[in-house]
């Protein structure tokens, strides 16, 4: 019986194949498939949403280059009000004793349904309130884009009152001309702690030495975003306290990060998670009066079509599909155009003058 099974079906199949060109066997009625074809054609002619590719963005940026940029104070005030309504950066920027009392349940913003309760030991690590003199006057937010290389922007960056940097960037003397040396706030991702410092489980001196360049700055860590990030972030705190280091640790508030994420999602950024840079820029827009951003350029060519490295210190490309950098860039570019913040893309000094000096 089982041997004879397939034979009639094959015969039947042959008959069906013969019929196929005359009358296609479909479950859908003909009208539905015609409608489907029509919709596909429509979508092809009028696409719903398509991210402009790299060249188009660069072209768009180049078009703006000639025009002088001016701060639009009403737009700045409006945007700050928007941010205050959604996220309240002044209060919620970091974990403080005020905004997270003991026994509060903290829902992690990077996990699905995971929370911790703030216990006595964790509570004691928080500062009383956000430790900045608000509002801050002039802020520079420094991304790590390769566009900063040979830009000579160091002096201009250092002129700001408050300099924010992302992900523990190197600040050695070879870069100080391009990225400056001042730091008031530097973010550190737990994944960096894990990769570069073995989660601080073994020797910790290397870490303490490597953060010495940031002098009296705050290290801003998203301790309560991912399950795996909590341990390393708290360990950073313990390490710096044990060594009596000058740096202090601030823990990011997951509620703030979640609100900022929602805010940008409503503006149309489709990513699993926002990049640290956008978090920082949003926070800066809420905390500072004047914001200038440097090194936010996620493309492989600069404005003149020259190829540049991904970061100013290396050329390690990120994992694809986690962050939506071009989308974020477009949002920031839009803010630049409307005068909310200033985005520095060209070199601050002419490279020729630099080399002669």
């Amino acid at each position, binding site marked *: 019986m089982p041997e004879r099974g397939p034979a009639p079906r094959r015969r039947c199949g042959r008959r069906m194949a013969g019929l196929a060109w005359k009358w296609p066997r479909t479950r859908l009625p003909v009208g539905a498939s015609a409608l489907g074809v029509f919709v596909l054609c429509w979508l092809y002619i009028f696409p719903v949403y398509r991210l402009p590719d790299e060249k188009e963005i660069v072209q768009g940026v180049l078009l703006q280059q000639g025009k002088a940029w001016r701060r639009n104070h009403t737009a700045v005030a409006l945007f700050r009000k928007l941010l205050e309504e959604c996220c309240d950066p002044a209060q919620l920027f970091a974990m403080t004793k005020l905004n997270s009392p003991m026994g509060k349940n903290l829902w992690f913003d990077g996990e699905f349904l995971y929370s911790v309760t703030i216990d006595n030991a964790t509570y004691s690590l928080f500062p009383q309130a956000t430790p900045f003199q608000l509002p801050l006057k002039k802020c520079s937010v420094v991304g790590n884009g390769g566009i900063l290389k040979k830009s000579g922007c160091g002096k201009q960056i250092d002129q700001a009152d408050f300099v924010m940097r992302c992900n523990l960037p190197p600040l050695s003397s070879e870069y100080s001309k391009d990225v400056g040396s001042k730091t008031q706030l530097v973010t550190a991702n737990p994944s960096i702690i894990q990769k570069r410092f073995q989660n601080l*489980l*073994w*020797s*910790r*001196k290397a870490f*303490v030495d490597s953060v010495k360049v940031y002098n009296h700055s705050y290290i801003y860590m998203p301790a309560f975003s991912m399950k795996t990030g909590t*341990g390393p972030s*708290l*360990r950073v705190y*313990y*390490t710096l*306290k*044990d*060594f009596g280091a000058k740096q202090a640790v601030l823990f990011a508030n997951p509620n703030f990060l979640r609100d900022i994420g929602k805010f940008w999602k409503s503006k149309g950024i489709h990513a699993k998670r926002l990049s640290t840079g956008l978090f920082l820029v949003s926070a800066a827009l809420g905390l500072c009066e004047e914001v200038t951003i440097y090194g936010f350029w996620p493309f492989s060519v600069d404005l003149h079509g020259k190829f540049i490295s991904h970061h100013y210190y290396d050329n390690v490309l990120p994992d694809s599909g986690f962050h939506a950098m071009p989308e974020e860039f477009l949002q920031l570019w839009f803010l630049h155009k409307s005068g909310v913040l200033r985005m520095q893309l060209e070199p601050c000094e002419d490279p020729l003058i630099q080399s002669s000096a």
Partner: protein
Amino acid sequence: MGYSDPSSSRDLLGNRTLFFIFICAFAVVTLLQQILYGRNYLKRYFEFYEGPLEYNSTKCLELRHDIIEVKVLSMVKQTELFDRWKNLQMLSKIYFMDTSGIFHINQEIFKMFPKDMPYHRSQFKKCAVVGNGGILKNSGCGREIDSADFVFRCNLPPISEKYLTDVGVKTDVVTVNPSIITERFHKLEKWRKPFYNVLQVYENASVLLPAFYNTRNTDVSIRVKYVLDDFESQQAVYYFHPQYLINVSRYWLGQGVRAKRISTGLILVTAALELCEEVHLFGFWAFPMNPSGIFITHHYYDNVKPRPGFHAMPSEIFNFLHMHSKGILRVHTGTCSCC
């Protein structure tokens, strides 16, 4: 006269009553055993105490020498004290003492080991091994301990001002049990300064760790070295060679010490017998009463009892007393009055 329970008179020597009697008898026997055993150890102790105590009499020295030569050194000849570096250079892996696994020594771990054996045989004249027994409390032995050339201490004991007169301050080797690090210092994964501060109290003492006892201890023990390096401390860190631990354990098992795990004190005493000519034991006492029958705390600094069935403390102490009576080493149990 009311009706009583009809079954009450029938069960006079029935199951229930018999069962009750059995329980009572068992309780009484246990109680008696406890009392007799308690008496017994004191008696045995005093028997030994009657023995020759002239530490430097030729007869005693001979006997002691014999025993060290024959017994201890026979074990020691095939092992060295802390780590066998020559072998380690060739071997890239070592086996844990409880055979729970194999540890592969990579370059980084290897760099932590000292180049040479830190101590050699019969290096010191007079050594003191300080246990943490409650018998040390109010003993006033601090000065006698400090007068020794080399002082071993077990398991990070407190040697603060409060205990100065009883336990002294001099420390040359202090052992740290990884379980202490796990419990008191969160495996050194969080704060490290408190642990460093505790070690600082022992000034230049070397830290001795049973890192390769089993797999759980290794990470924690290696972290100790990192902590001391990070804080730029001069204190040296040594690790027991697992083979040494095995041999010591085997040797004492042959001597009648039966335990799942020999205590740190016993390992240190073995090491001291090898390193020193005179070995003095202070605070080795694991009984609720001191020889004169007064109740004492378990440790000189607290009264936390150990987990039962883990170490065979009384057996080890009897062993020391036995050796004491033969003049091999000296167990101090009373108050000190010398110096």
